[in-house]
């Protein structure tokens, strides 16, 4: 079971969180013309990366904040975690 550093609560076990997918996906702005391809990329198309992956988790049984987690999908190593509004450099 992963041990995730919630930027709001500290180290917590994985069973307090729920997974939320790729954190690098950006929703197209409201009221903007979006091509089919662009929309499909936003809704459906995901890379299945091996290695470092920035992903979303929600601390659902804790502070309920959505956070960003930089994790290696092959080894489960977690490098860094970020608050929802933190820019990832």
């Amino acid at each position, binding site marked *: 079971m992963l041990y995730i550093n919630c930027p709001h609560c500290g180290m917590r076990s994985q069973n307090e969180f729920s997974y939320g997918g790729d954190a690098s996906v950006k929703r197209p702005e409201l009221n903007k013309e979006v091509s089919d391809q662009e929309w499909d990329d936003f809704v459906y198309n995901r890379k299945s990366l091996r290695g470092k992956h920035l992903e979303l988790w929600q601390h659902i049984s804790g502070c309920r904040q*959505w956070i960003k987690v930089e994790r290696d999908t092959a080894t489960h190593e977690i490098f860094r975690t970020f608050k*929802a509004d933190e820019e990832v450099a």
Partner: protein
Amino acid sequence: MTQAFRIGNGGLVNRDKKLSFKFNGKTYFGYEGDTLASALLANGVHLVGRSFKYHRPRGFFGAGVDEPYAIVQLYRNGETEPNIKATEQELFEGLEAKSVNCWPSVNFDIGAINNFLKIFLPAGFYYKTFMWPKSFWYRLYEPFIRKAAGLGVASTKHDNERYEHKYEYCDLLIAGSGPSGLSSAYAAAKNGARVILAEDKPRFGGSLLTSDVNIGNQSGKDWADGIIAELKTMPNVVVKNRSQIFGYYDHNMLVMSEKVSDHLPKTKKYHPNKRLWYIRAKEVLISSGSIERPIVFGNNDTPGVMLSSAAKEYLKVYGVLVGKNPLIFTNNDSGYETAIEFKKHGVDPIVLDSRKHSTSEIIDEAKNLGINIKNSYVVVAAQGYKKVKSAEIASISDDKKQLGKIESINCDCICVSGFWTPTIHLASQSGNKTEFKEEIDAFIPGQSKQNETTLGAANGVFSLEETLKTSFATGSELSKKITENDNEIAIPNVVEKKSSQHDKFWCVPLPKGKNYKRFLDFQNDVAVSDVEIALREGYRSIEHVKRYTTLGMATDQGKTSNLNGLQLVSEIENKVVPAVGHTTFRPPYTPVSIGAIVGREVGKHSKPTRKSPMHLWHKKNNAVFVDAGVWLRPRYYKKGNETLFEASKREAKNVRNNVGVCDVTTLGKIDVKGPDAAELLNRVYTNAWLKLPVGKARYGVMLREDGIVMDDGTTTRISENHYHMTTTTAQAANVLSHLEYYLQLVWPELDVNVVSTTEQWAGAAIAGPKSRDLLQKLFPNSDVSNDGLPFMGYMEGNLFGIKAKIFRISFSGELAYEVNVESDHGNFMWEKIIEVGKEFNIQPYGTEALSTLRIEMGHVAGSELDGRTIPYDNALEGLVSKKKDFIGKRSLQRSAFTAENRQRIVGVVPLDKQTSIPEGSHLVKDDKAPLPNPKLGHISASCWSVEYDNPFSLAILKDGKNMIGQKLFAMSPLKNKVIPVEIVSSHYVDPKGERVRS
């Protein structure tokens, strides 16, 4: 029965407490502190089972976790547990066990014929034999294999034992309480670290219980007892025996199975049988010791052949002689230690040492005791069928290829020592890439992957002095990093006998003309010849050899067989062992009860049960409950002998004719507050929200980004910046997460706060033509007239002194209201509604009547909003704004979603107006068409229309818009029904919606 093989005194068992037990129906006696194995051996019982494939007689090979043979079926409290190792099961009064894998009995087993057919049962035998003809597989081969395979029999009864889970955190977790575990635990504890020390056996001390050493002027065992006693008094230390750490998972999470009452005849009322510990450790010290490995020779599986360390343990811990005429076969000094123990108890052993010359303190002691030692000698084969009677022995050449003249000598047991294999399982599970250590012919952990350190024999260090030194140092260092304390501890003096170099000899060659089976894996009956076949047939990778031959795949996971298997492959392939590599170690290290893994999460406990504040009233009034998500809801209120069908019809009719009340507490409720609340709703729902006035409710539909309907419900504007959102019972949690996602990640600029209030409010829906009259009586000071509280209106009221929220909303399609009060007052509200409603003939109604009412009105619910439909499919496209953007809008432009013949909700009535249509039935044009019959749609919900007194269903139908009036067939192969139906409008009752506005 007398315990003929129990020595006069000695051992650690409690001789004051005699216990009786049964094995294969026969009664025996043992002592408290025995294992089933030691008690059987004390009684001279060596035959405990039959082997997996050839049904050869099986005895005891080890004394603990490494035991490959002695697997029994255990009976306790009228329940049975399979695959119990007799070497691990502690004896208790009244224990009952039976042999497995034999029929009709362990003494006469018909399956043993396989032993004579063994030429037909080579490696890969399943793959080769049961292939053709294909049709034989299900009828013949599979049932046969299922019957032949496996050892114990799983119980078919409900397991009444209780199992618990526990989460724990610590600075240092230490696996194993031998010399290294004890010293590192002690050093860390003295530095104030939070320590958990786990020992799988009942007794602490590991090898110190059986080795002849002296630490700090005490015997090894006394020293261990002292350390444990002190550790137990320390508040920062948890010491656990009977606790096996069986898995090392990600991020230093380890799982341990603790036997809480496994050693007792009956579980105490509030004690679990086992407890599973999930332990998150900052540092893990693996001091799991080592397991002696066998030397391979002919018939080396005969009962009476066992590890020399096991023989020593039975003698020193249990006071039991495994034989009175022992032959010891060794390639190192450990065999001598066992010989010395025998000799000290008046038994004369013979030692065969494969080495030509060897001298050490231990050997000198053996010689001084007058023990008969034969150097350059080996056991060629054991003789005897159900028990060792003699051994064929021979001298062996220096290159270990040539055997001398074969002689036969009498013996009743053969104790084997082929040196030691470090127990590296946990380190390997952690991700540690192990490395081969030439000096000991075995793998040891390499570079740590997680925060694990392996110490002592598990790390290939067999000197006690060095083990203590490194273990004290490591325990102290690691804890210092965490606690910043540095208490110096004097390392005690160690007196141990020095050993000489072992012989890299592991397999006795076959003598000319002999064809003895030489087993590598004792539990799965894998012999040297099987591995040879696998290699001849081209299996090269050790992983393939393992699977083809089943070497190391049994419940003992090859604890005694792995290395010898690797030696053999390396020899045949002419590769060094590290080049062959070893198979992956996976958790669990030892078998774990399924019950322990499941814990308390069984049956009703597998998820929480939520009850409304009115639950007790429902119960008192004969409600029959149904699971709705995690909630229990009344399905109907039973009167007399009513069936579900009759009761729900009565309840629904009463709503249409008079007034009914339904508990709607379970609806999800979310408070949406803030200056941008309207803007959030406007983006989340498909319809417009910016102009909703205070005191008004609106029905809304929300989509996922892929255009599929996620949920629906009404949201009410309570005040300027405060909205009360409702969701369906099932989606409440998902909707909250959904809103939080957009507020925190996508539109953080919106100044809105959302919070679940589902449990804060109790709700009652009052529905029916007389509901307004009732409401007026409940709230005499409020104007609830059609003008004062119009459809979709909201007001606050005073319910006999309780603050209440009144919404004029309707799911039933009748004139209806929902009243909410704070949960604590829910029951008060309910009782008042029932009391005041009497004069209007009020009746409570359950979810079944609720469904009937909504279905015949054509209102959609979970069965239509099933994660596959868009607003159009549910006839909700009128709620989709063309002017503004919202979540999922862009997806609605997809061509499949705009197709002319898109599926759509319709009503379905059987032509005979009698036959109810099963939910899930498929709608087809031609009931006689060949399969696969093209499906046009499916029945999503069915009811008995109380308005028209005939069956009515809703369906999602292809091109539903143009299908009204068509005749189709509803087919349910599951219920074996074909029903001719007519397609009608989904709004079966009151299609203009006049009643809700009346």
